[in-house]
C-alpha cells in the first residue's frame, strides 16, 4: 500500500481545492448501493475513497481519528437502515458511537459537516450519489483540514532548539538562548 499523500489536493483542471473524503461503507447495504450506482452509470463526485467494512458496527472510532490525522478532509459512514442490519444490532452500535464521536470531534475543532453518518440501503444507489455530492460540496466550502500539514507546522517551534542542542553537542556546555 502506498503512503498517503499529505499535500492538499487541487484539481489540475480548475486549480480549486478538491476535498478528500474517506467513506466507510457496510458490505450489505451502502457498499452494494455504491456498486449499483456504478452499474447504473450514475455520476457522482470522485472525491470519496471507499473502504468496505462488513458492518457499520465494525467502525472503530480510531478509524475516523486516523483518517483525519492522515489527511482526510471529511469522513462519511454508510450503513443499513435501522432494523435492517445484517448482524441485527451493528448499525445501532454505530449510531451510538457516531453520536458521541460527533460531539467530541466538535469539541476538538472539527467542523460538523466533515463527519457524517447516513443509512443507505442496497437499492438506494441514487442516495449514494446525492449524499456524496452534497457532502463534497459542503466540505469544499469548508476548505482543507490538512492535519498532517498542521501537525508539521506545530512541531516547527521545536526545530531551532533541537538544532542548537545538537550543535552544542560538540562544544560543552550547552546553553540555550
Amino acid at each position: 500500500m502506498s503512503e498517503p499523500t499529505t499535500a492538499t489536493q487541487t484539481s489540475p483542471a480548475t486549480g480549486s481545492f478538491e476535498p478528500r473524503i474517506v467513506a466507510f461503507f457496510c458490505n450489505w447495504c451502502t457498499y452494494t448501493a455504491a456498486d449499483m450506482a456504478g452499474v447504473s452509470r450514475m455520476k457522482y463526485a470522485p472525491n470519496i475513497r471507499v473502504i468496505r467494512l462488513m458492518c457499520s458496527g465494525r467502525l472503530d472510532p480510531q478509524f475516523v481519528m486516523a483518517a483525519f490525522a492522515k489527511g482526510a478532509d471529511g469522513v462519511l459512514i454508510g450503513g443499513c437502515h435501522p432494523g435492517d442490519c445484517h448482524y441485527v444490532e451493528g448499525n445501532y452500535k454505530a449510531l451510538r458511537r457516531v453520536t458521541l464521536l460527533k460531539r467530541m470531534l466538535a469539541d476538538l475543532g472539527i467542523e460538523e459537516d466533515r463527519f457524517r453518518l447516513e443509512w443507505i440501503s442496497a437499492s438506494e444507489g441514487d442516495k449514494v450519489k446525492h449524499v456524496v455530492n452534497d457532502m463534497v460540496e459542503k466540505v469544499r466550502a469548508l476548505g482543507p483540514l490538512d492535519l498532517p500539514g498542521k501537525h508539521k507546522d506545530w512541531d516547527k517551534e521545536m526545530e531551532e532548539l533541537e538544532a542548537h542542542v545538537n550543535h552544542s553537542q560538540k562544544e560543552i556546555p550547552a546553553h540555550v538562548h
Partner: protein
Amino acid sequence: MSTKPKIGFYWCASCGGCEESVVDLAEDVLMVTNAVDIVFWPCAMDFKKADIEAMPDKSIVATLLNGAIRSSEQEEMAHLLRRKSQVLIAYGSCAHTGGIPSLANQFTREQILKYVYEEAPTMVNDQKTRPQPHFKEDGRETELPVLRNLVRALDQVVDVDYYIPGCPPPPKLLKEAVLALLSGKLPPKGAVLAPNHAVCQECARNDSKPQDISLVEFKRPHQIIADPEKCLLAQGLPCMGPATRGGCDAVCIKGNMPCTGCFGPVDNVRDHGAKILSYLASTAAGKEEKDIAKTLAGIPDPVGTFYRYGLAKCLLRGKVHATGESTPK
C-alpha cells in the same frame, strides 16, 4: 569514584506526584540507593544542570523523566538528559501520554495567558503585565523560558526507550523497572513496563460485570453511593477500565471510584480516547437517536473524560484551531 550504575530523575510539567511515588518505595528505596548512584534529582538533592553538562555522553545508565514538555527549558533538559543517558524512561502519565497538562491543548497559548494574567477572578493586573522571555533594565538582563504552543509527551520531543505508566506509577512498577535495568533483562525498546492487559482483568469485581451492559443513564460518582462489590460500569459509572492498561491492581476501584484511565492504552491501541468512546458509547441502551443522545448527555465532556491523561497522544493532538500563533510573544 563509585562504579555503581548512575541513575537520574527529572521533572518537567508535572505535579510532583511522580517524585512522591519514588519516595513511596519506602524501605525499598534503600535497595535502590545501595545498588545505584543517584546523580541527578533536583526535587530531592542538590545537583545542578552544569553537573550534568560536564558528564560524558551516555554516562547515566538510566534517567526517569516525569512530566509533559511545555516550555523551552523542559525541552532543552529532555534533549540534554537524552544525550547523557543510555536509557531514557518516560515516567508517569504526563511523560508517557501528555497527562493532565496536555488537556491545555484544547486552548491556544494566547487564551491561556490571557486568562491567567488578565481574566482569572483572583487576578488584579490593570497594566496587563505578562512575564517576558527577555527583559532588560538598568543594564541587567533576564531571560525566561518560552511556552510552546502545544504540550507534548516526552516521545514527541526526544527518543524514548521505555515507558512507566500511571498517575503516579505504583512503586511496584518502579521497583520492577529498576531491577530489570540492573539485571540487564530489558524488554524490546519502546515497551511499556506494565502488563499488556486491561484493568478489568485485575479487578476484583470483574465477575459481576454483565455480559451485555445496557445503560439508560450515566451517573457521576457524587450522585450515587456505589455498591462496593458490583462492577461500577454496570452501576452506570463511566469506568475506563475496559480500555485502559492494567498494572495498578485496580486500586481506584478498590476505593470504590471508577478508573479514569491514567495507565493509557494497551499495546495494540493507537488512540486511547477513541477506544474508550467506542465501548462506552455502545453501552447506551437506546435505539432512537434522541434516546441515545439523552443517555450520552451524561458524559458532558468527552475530551476531558476520554483523554484525561493523554490529549497529547490523541491522533489529532489537541483542538484543531488551538495553534493560531507561531511565534512566542
